[in-house]
């Protein structure tokens, strides 16, 4: 029997639960390694070689090389771990969020200043299917 996941129908949202943590374990732990400055240097010098030291899937490695955080989240990555990549690239957490929301950082920051993304039509995936 599968676990009860009442959060499965929240639009634009992947909950970082056991299944996602299991799938993304090595990708997230790779991100943790970037907390050390010497590792950040080594990674930036040759990203592919650094990634090949980790037992991650090829898809996860490619998502990291592409800095495709949305894809990486689908493959089990979590934003608090991505944050180590954001600062490695000298970017902010808001920048990372903006890429996942499909917006420029400026658009995203303006949206936040204007009160944030509205909950209207954003509670259930079926609200969005009905256009």
């Amino acid at each position, binding site marked *: 029997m599968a676990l009860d996941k009442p*959060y499965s129908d929240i639009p*634009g949202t992947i909950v*970082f639960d056991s299944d996602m943590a299991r799938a993304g374990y090595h990708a*997230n732990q790779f991100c943790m390694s970037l907390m050390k400055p010497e590792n950040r240097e080594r990674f930036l010098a040759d990203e592919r070689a650094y990634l090949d030291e980790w037992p991650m899937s090829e898809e996860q490695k490619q998502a990291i090389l592409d800095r495709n955080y949305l894809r990486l989240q689908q493959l089990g990555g979590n934003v608090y771990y991505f944050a180590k990549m954001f600062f490695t690239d000298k970017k902010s957490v808001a920048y990372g969020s903006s890429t996942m929301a499909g917006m420029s950082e400026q658009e995203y920051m303006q949206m936040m200043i204007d009160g944030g993304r509205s909950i209207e039509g954003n509670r259930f995936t079926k609200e969005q299917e009905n256009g």
Partner: protein
Amino acid sequence: MARLTAGLTTSHVPAIGAAIDLGKTQEPYWKPLFDGFEFSRKWMQENKPDVVFLVYNDHASAFDLSNIPTFAIGCGEEYESTDEGWGPRPIPTVKGAPDLAWHIRQSVIQDDFDLTTVSEMTVDHGFTVPLSLLFGQPKEWPCLVIPFAVNVIVYPPPSGRRCYEIGKSIRKAIDSFDDDLNVQIWGTGGMSHQLQGPRAGLINKDFDMKFFEDLIHNPEALAEMPHVEYQRDAGSEGIELVMWLIMRGAMDAKVKEIHRHYHVPASSTAVGHLILENA
């Protein structure tokens, strides 16, 4: 005997810490947020605690996926700030309260709550930003602090009910400590926010306002709110708000509101802040 004299809540957004550290608090983006803590800083000076029991979550700093305690009580003598990528925050070393912390630990485990006991760890923005918000930039922190780290990052966090009940157990432990200490409990994190996925940037002011009211006046009912309601209505990261129930469980059934502040945004987060006293 030790006395719990106040409960407080505040958001712990890392950008708030950066604004303080870089001297940006009076810039137009930040000023309205910090203005709401002016009262609180004065109140804190007039009502200085001996110990703050600070409930927060670590953000993949001291704990990563290799080690995920649900509840971790800090029984250490002191704590340094984590280097989260921009160097450790330029703040004084946090002095712990190990006598009280070990006492609380034993009492709470005796009440059938399963705690992890941690005596050596760094503390990240979740812990240090509230200290900076309430105490500014002192040379030494004016009180001792006990870190209480809750897992809210890898689903599931403990339930609202579990948080509320452990709050009651923490209160009982404080009440049974012989030394005459003035203790406050702080619940941190929140309010509504979502940092990841296409729905990043979600803010729900209606939810947040209702959360303030229910926390103060109807915590028993609020403790029954399921995780999915936090996630759906307050954002995947808004689930942090369960930690505010630990604070509330430690307070008396009836509390009075001393101060309230709400501001959007601090980066992607709705900032909420309360000061409560037992009524």
